[in-house]
């Protein structure tokens, strides 16, 4: 039984963390909401005035918003699809008896530990450069014309780089889940004469449903605000072709110094992320009960 003394102690120990996170959550958010209702440009100091919802109207009807919303959705959707469609077979492969598995696993997980600015620049220059990149050379070997990745398919190039960074994450989580799958269940299915394919469909896949959901939610949270990869490769261009919501807000805030509009955009991003967060928090919460 916890005594009153320990309860008091427990509360005291918890307070700093709760207070800090509370301030961290409330203060910037409140300021963002406040700024979003102002006409406020850093290049034009002293001209701040209340404009109500004008910034939201401006941000939401800006053609750049629709373009960047579309880019954000395409980027998130594509990376999710690629990492899961490749991640499932890869996890299944690593779950087999493989000689030197630990080394293979190290190689597979490595990209996740590479800082985003390094991955983006190495891919952009060493691999995807239209003249001197390795891909151009490989295309040349097969007698194909080299692809000018960042001009011809800029968004796809960014998607490719980000997928490479997140494939290890999806694979590792799915592999962890596979390893907790009961061997006996699979054996029983095999003894009953189930084929490998039906074992996969009726036993393995249902078991993976939850980890796949978790991968989707967590990746979405991070992918909604991809920034560094775009910042160092395309700068959002050409035109708006690789501008996502995060990059649009950044450019309005720190390039055009339009605080009001960027804040309105920031709130749009918060709302988008919260839709995803709602589901993730529920799944994690259900797990806490168990």
């Amino acid at each position: 039984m916890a005594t009153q003394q320990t309860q008091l102690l427990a509360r005291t120990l918890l307070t700093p963390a709760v207070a800090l996170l509370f301030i961290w959550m409330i203060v910037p958010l409140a300021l963002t909401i406040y700024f979003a209702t102002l006409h406020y440009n850093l290049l034009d100091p002293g001209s701040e005035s209340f404009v109500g919802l004008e910034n939201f109207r401006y941000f939401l009807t800006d053609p750049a918003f629709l373009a960047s919303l579309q880019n954000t959705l395409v980027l998130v959707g594509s990376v999710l699809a690629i990492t899961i469609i490749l991640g499932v077979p890869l996890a299944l492969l690593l779950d087999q008896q493989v000689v030197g598995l630990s080394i293979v696993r190290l190689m597979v997980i490595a990209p996740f530990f590479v800082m985003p600015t390094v991955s983006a620049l190495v891919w952009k220059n060493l691999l995807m450069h239209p003249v001197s990149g390795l891909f151009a050379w490989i295309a040349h070997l097969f007698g194909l014309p080299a692809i000018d990745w960042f001009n011809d398919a800029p968004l796809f190039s960014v998607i490719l780089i980000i997928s490479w960074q997140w494939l290890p994450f999806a694979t590792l989580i799915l592999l962890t889940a596979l390893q907790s799958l009961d061997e006996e269940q699979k054996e029983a299915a095999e003894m009953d004469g189930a084929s490998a394919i039906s074992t996969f469909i009726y036993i393995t896949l249902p078991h993976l449903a939850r980890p796949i959901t978790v991968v989707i939610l967590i990746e979405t949270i991070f992918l909604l605000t991809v920034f560094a990869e775009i910042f160092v490769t395309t700068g959002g261009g050409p035109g708006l072709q690789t501008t996502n919501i995060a990059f649009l807000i950044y450019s309005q805030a720190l390039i055009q110094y339009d605080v009001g509009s960027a804040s309105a955009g920031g709130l749009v991003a918060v709302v988008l992320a919260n839709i995803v967060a709602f589901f993730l928090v529920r799944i994690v919460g259900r797990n806490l009960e168990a």
Partner: protein
Amino acid sequence: MARMVTTRNKVISTAAAWLVGFLIFFPILWMVLASFKTELEAFAIPPSFLFFHWTTENYVTVQERSDYLHHALNSIVIAGGSTLIAMLIAIPAAWSMAFSPTKRTKDILLWMLSTKMMPPVGVLVPIYLIYRNFGLLDTRSGLIFILCLGNLPIVIWMLFTYFKEIPKDILEAARMDGATIGRELIYVLTPMAVPGLASTLLLNLILAWNEAFWTLNLSTLEAAPLTVFIASYSSPEGLFWAKLSAASTLAIAPILVLGWFSQRQLVRGLTFGAVK
């Protein structure tokens, strides 16, 4: 009963796994190789894979021309500082929630998780302005503070899931024997918590080291860690591949080593215990 695996299957899956692993790892390998080439060889076509003139000159130049060590030190101070402070705040909180849970503990945990869901870009404007007004832009302490807050929910969550696994009976026994809370903490809990503390520390060092939103937006030169330093190679395109590779290799090497050690804990830390 172990399932019978034929030798043929084993050979096929081994070959396939090694091939895929190699392909995924290849960009990193290619970068490391490029770091030992001369600038001319680094973008020569056809590329040379192993038979080039190996040189370590790039590593020397990177330091001489751009003060690599300054940025590496920034990375160490910022990642290390923010992680340590986050641990100091998180350990008592996680301890309290794991060992004296109340009705609200679950709600508090989920609320903490939800603060992590806030997209950084949503609060970029106020943070930038606050930092500008308080002179925190491009300072190490400014970055330590923001990364600490950003990672705090993950640190608390990881520690909580580890502490939760320490059997309560042991604490009861210690209390029966008349141990005070202080003694209980030092002699009973700490030894059992060390593995969890270590992996939490590792994972958060990695996250802080690689963080590239706040570091890119809030620092330029003085406090710039390696993420920002590497980003500065994005402008003179095509000219400094070997040096870019050398700087990148140095920047990711320590974290790759740490990451390989902590890969098992990674799953747990990043899924908030939802996948074990």
